[in-house]
Structures are given as C-alpha cells and as structure tokens.
C-alpha cells in the first residue's frame, strides 16, 4: 500500500492523522481509497491538492501511476507567476 503524508489542510478529515497507508494503483484509485477511509477527503484533495508521488508533483492527473511502496504527499496545488 502507498504511504500517504497529509498536511494540516487534510486534518479536519483525518482527525489529525498525518501519515497512513491506503491502496491505489493510480491517483484516481487513491482518491477513492482516501474517501472511503476518511469521508469527504477524496473530494477535497481532488479539488484542492496536488499529489507528490515519490517526490514528483502531479497535479490534476487521475491516471498517474502509484507503486505499492510509493510515498504520496498531499500538498496544496501550486500556481505561479
């Protein structure tokens, strides 16, 4: 299972948990798993967060692959100038 690291934005959904493991072979699968475990978190992260998969930022990319031993860090979506 992927190891998920969730920042403070996610804590209202996770009850303060910042690291946990969930299933998901793709970002979309992971979103579904997050929502099943923490209701509401899936929709929240889908709209507001980017996924740093093994250090590489993926944004709005449902089908980016996730390995079973991946680290997936949920971070706010990044803009720029």
């Amino acid at each position, binding site marked *: 299972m992927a190891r998920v690291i969730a920042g403070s934005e996610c804590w209202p959904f996770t009850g303060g948990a910042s690291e946990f493991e969930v299933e998901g072979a793709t970002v979309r699968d992971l979103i579904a798993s997050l929502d099943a475990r923490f209701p509401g978190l899936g929709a929240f992260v889908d709209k507001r967060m980017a996924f740093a998969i093994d250090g590489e*930022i993926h944004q709005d990319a449902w089908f980016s692959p996730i390995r079973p031993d991946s680290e997936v860090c949920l971070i706010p979506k990044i803009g720029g100038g």
Partner: protein
Amino acid sequence: MSETLDKPAAKAPLTIVGTRPIRPDGADKVTGRAAFGADFHMPGQLVGRVLRSPHAHARIVSIDTSKAKALPGVKAIVTAADFPDLASEMVEGSEASSDIRDLSLNVMARHKVLYHGHAVAAVAAVSGDIAEEALARIKVTYEVLPHVTDVEEAMAPGAPLLHDHLFTEGLEARPAQASNIARKHRFVRGDLAEGFAAADVVVERRYDTKATHQGYIEPHACVAAWGEDGRCDVWCSSQGQFTIRSYCAKVLGLETSDIRVTPAEIGGGFGGKTTVYLEPLALALSRASGHPVKMVMSREEVFRATGPTSGGVIEVKLGAKKDGTIVAAEVELKFQAGAFPGSPVGTAAMTALACYDIPNFSIVGWDVVTNTPKTAAYRAPGAPISAFGVESAVDELAQKLGLDAIAIREKNAVRDGTKASYGPTFQNIAYVDTLKVIKDSAHWNTPLGPNQGRGFAVGFWFNVGGESTAAVHIGEDGSAVVVTGNPDIGGSRASMAMMAAETLGLPIEKVRPMIADTNAIGYSMLTGGSRVTFATGMAVVQAAEKVVADLRGRAAKLWDVAADQVVWQGGQAVCLDPAKADKKPLTIEALAAQSARTGGPISAQAAINAQGPGPGFAAHLCDVEVDPETGVVSVLRYTASQDVGKAIHPSYVEGQVQGGVAQGVGWALNEEYVFDADGRMENAGFLDYRMPVASDLPMLDAILVETAPNPRHPFGAKGVGEVPIVPPLAAVANAVSAAIGVRMPNLPLSPPKVLAALDAKAG
C-alpha cells in the same frame, strides 16, 4: 560573464539544444513590427474608459449615468447591473483556481467599492476625450466606510470588515464571527519546543515588506468585438489567451466557444497578466454599442487597479547547535491579499524553509484582505517575501555562530532524499552545487572596500507543469512550423523551435514558431509558473516525434521495408535493411515533396498534461556600497547560480536570471506602494515608484548549474523563470546590513531608511 557547470551528457551530443541561436522574434521587436496589446485597431472602433472609485472603502448608494448617456458621441455605458451577479464558484482558469465571484466583483464593483481605483462604471465613446467627459458626468453616490490597508491592522479585532461573509478557513473550528482573515495555512514537523530547548543559539526578528508591482512596461490593453451572432473576438496582451477566454466567458455568462481570444505580443507580465481587468468590460461595451471597443490602461490605472503582490510581515525564530546545525524554526507570515482573498501566503509558507533540512519547525501563514488592489501573481508568488525573512535570519544566525554564509547553508542543505519542509522527498536536485559554484567563484573570494558589504541568500521554487497543446506542420519544402498556445514572455518561441529542430533534425532556421489564437490550437494553460519550456516543450517534442514516426513510415513504404528497418538520423530517413543497401537516405525535404502521394500533409499534434516539472534552487551573492552621507545603496557586483536542469537556450536562461535579480533589487531597495491616510496610493507612476533601470545595475553574472537534468523532460529542462527573484531581497538586505553594521529588517532599503539606521547607530 556567464558560465556553466556541466556534467558530461550520457546521450549523443545535442546539436541545437544548448546553443544560442538568434531569437525568432528579435527582428520584429527591434524594428517595431511586433504588435503589442495597444497596437491593434479595428474599423469603427470606440474608445473605452473606466470610472474608478475615489474611496478606499464605500457603499455604492446609486449610480446615475443619464447625463453621461446624453453626451453626443457616447455609445454605451456599463455598470455592475450589466453583468450577471455570480455565485461563489472556484474555477480552474489558470494554474491555481480562483473564485469567479471575486474575479467578477474585481472587474466591476457591485454594492461596495473595496479599494481606491476599483472600477464602478465603463464608457465607450467615439473618442477618448468624450469618454473622459462622460466619466465626469456619471454621478456615483457613496456612503464612505472606514478602511484598512495595513495587514496587521486588518487582522486586529474591530478592524473595518471588507466582507461580511468571510470566515477564516483553516482553523480547527469555524469562527463565530466574520473577519478579514481569509485563511490560515500551517506546516509543521517534529517538536518545536524540544528543538529550541536543544539549541545553543537562537535568533528572533520581525521583518516586513511592502506591496510591490510587477512593473511590466506594457499596460493592460485590449480590443473586443461582439458579433451580431453572439460570437466575440478579443485581441489582448496576456499571459494566457485561454485563461482570458475562460474568465470572460464566466464573467459574462457565455460559452467558451463563443469567444475567440487572439494573443498580442506581450510587453512583460511577470504574473500580473494572468487575470482579466479590461476584457469583460470591453466585451460588455461592445455588446451594448454594436461597435468594437478598444481599452488601454494608463500607468496610473495599472498601479491603482491591477494586482501588485502582497506586502507582508515575516516573523522568524531560528535555533541552532554550536556547529551550525539548525534544530528548530518558527515562521509566521501575514500577507495582504488586497480586496479579495488569495494572497500568495500559502506558497510563501511552503517555500520558506524548503532549502533547509530542519527536524522541528512550525510555519503559519495568514491570508488577509485589505482595502488595497487585489493582489495578482508575481514571479514565484510569495516566495521572495518569506525568503527575505528566513534568509536574513540565517545570515544573522551565521554571524552569531562565526560561520560564513555559505557554510551554514551547506550544513543544513536539502539533498536528494531529503524530505522537503512542504512534504515530498526531493529527487534530482542540484541545490548543493549552486552553493559550491558560488563558493568557488572569483566574486566570493574578492575582498571588499570601505562602506561595502556582501550578502548571500538562497531560494526555492516548485515550478509547474500542466496542460499544453502543440502542433508541428511540415511544409512542402521540408521546413516546419511549430504552433503552441502560450504567449512568449521569456523566450519560449526560441526554445520551442529549438526542441522541434533537435527532434526533427532540421536546422533551426527552418523551424518557425508561432502562437495561435484559442480557435486555432488546443487548450494550453497560461504562460506562468515557469512551465512553458518544460510542459509545452514536452508537447512540442511529442508532436515532432509523431512527425518523425510518420516520416519513417512513409520512407518504409517507399522502400518496401518494415517500419522498424528505418531510423531517423540527422534529419533524414535511413534504411537499415541490408537487402536494400542501395537505398539512399531520404531527407525531410524529399519526403515532404512527395507528401500527397504518400498519405497527405505531414502534420501532428500533441496535447498533454505534463507532470514532474522538477524544482528550482538558486544561490545569490551581492556586493553593495552605501553612501554614508545620503544613504544611497549601489549594487556593485552580483552573481547568481541556479539549478536549471538543462538550459535549452542558455542566453534566455541567463536573461531570466538577470531579470529576476533586477526585479528583486528594486523590491529590496526602492519599490513600495505608499498609501495616504485615505487609502489612496500616493506614488502611482514610475517617477515616484522607483524601479531599477539598466544604469542602476552592474552586469549580473549568471552561473547555470546543469548537474541534475530533469528526467521527465526529453532534454532535462526544469523551469527557470521564477526562482531568480526569490533570493535577491535578502541578498541585498544582508549586504546592506553588512556594509553599515546594522540589521535592516524592513524593506525597501530606500535612502531615508538607510540614513536613519546610520544616524541611530552613530547615536
């Protein structure tokens, strides 16, 4: 002087990428042929002007346009009543989402004005003089309200409230009362108290910066034409024609397919042209008048009504062991968002400690609305402000510990495998190399003279990928056109053409880049976030690779061999089949000449959502001299190193570095929004808002570090346009502090402020 720290390439040497060809837009720009936003004209066009609020905060009681409408030559007047009253909705119009209601209310005030300069009505007339006269005849009755422009005053209990519906997000519980604090951001790790308890040395200080403008030379400008069939055209200067289309459609309640936006040449944007101000007004005026409408902002309007970046307060506390290991950091950021939520405090918080491996930290950021223009993105939004505080504090910490400025950063540097302060684990970064090249530079090892000081600072920016479309068309003579949907604000035409030429095997002179309107190319996110050479470049390469595959396939058919028996080498198809050894290679010209007989036009498109942009790091070294009699600071020497992955066109990358430094020097030394007691900006012009010009700066030396190519990009490119503006505020301030022997925590370091510090020191 510029130099490159390079690692030998593993692949075959590149022939075009990494060289410095003449820019494809150069002739147009030096001859004046390039058409910028204000250069477009249409037959029968009217002139549009905007009536702006004289108050920083007021309720709009009534607007009477009758006398203005009666003026001969006035063809249309619009107010908020001519736009749909939108509900709050986050839209994905650019790299980050925006609330379309706030966007609409910023374009045209409804019920309340929230800053001096806020639009309340717009007029279209047959001439500018008549439009101005009409503005003077519009009677707006205001109920003036108390205002607040300072971020900490806006946060205080009892402050004038901008929005009754604004309740702070990000708190553990929803607050009972509305406030000006839109959001709290928080990043934490470890045990802060334990970290500081273990520290041998602690530094703590409050810093502040003022709102500064992106300062693009070209003001906002557009022409809009509303067709009788409801289909509209907009010609304008922006950082993204698709973003303009999306926002105009939302603000006016149209389908995106009803609007075609044609990008003009852009005279600077730096993040400030990622939203709409005039375009929906021009469209509404065109709809009402039946004529095309042209609108061009004055410089004063640009300052008063378009996004600066935030002024901010940065409080930093650092704790370290005697050997320089930083064991605890506490950072609090308070940022002006302007009239609507959405300051860059979130990214400021995420980047604040990104160069450091610190076990215990807390970073808190507050997004605060104020009666000032709504902030817009500005190059690495927020990062220069938090870096100013953190890098100044690290400088002070190094002095207390007796370490040099580079040594303390090497000691605490993030490397591959380090968990970044904002969460992910870094991979393929060359931050330590950016430090090394500065330490090895002649600049670092050159002694200083009297009244001179040297400052050092580092910076980080994420960079962005995202959606891009590109098309490559081969002409019948074998030349190529590369079409993308991204305005060229930093040399992307050149890099697109170079990457296509490298892939196709064509000389660069045979590849022409062009930027298409929204009906002529697929969706592309705007030009910003340091994304275009990375993301759109990937689309270009993929489109070119499809063309190459097509050409190989055609050659295989002509030779009657399997496709895998044809390779593409040096711009021509080469047959590998030993049975066909007599077949001479087919050039792209030869294949293009036979395109009709071999399958039709040779053309391909790629539409992608690029991921994995790869972060950028920068290390800057600055020497200044302070005139003790006047307090004037002169930048004597500046060297900037940067982790660039692979520079596609090194001259352009150096230009990005130099441009970011120049803007950062201005931010550090002179630039600031000055508000009077009524909340009116007092210096809304380039005479009083002092930006550096070429004569203010020495040659800015750029060192491009190419030791960590981005594995996601076909040539290893990382974004380069934003991180150069992150370190200069602190690098300059640290240099001034060193020169005068007084820590300078409040920007800008204008002569009166420096002189006051010198006087205070002298007692």
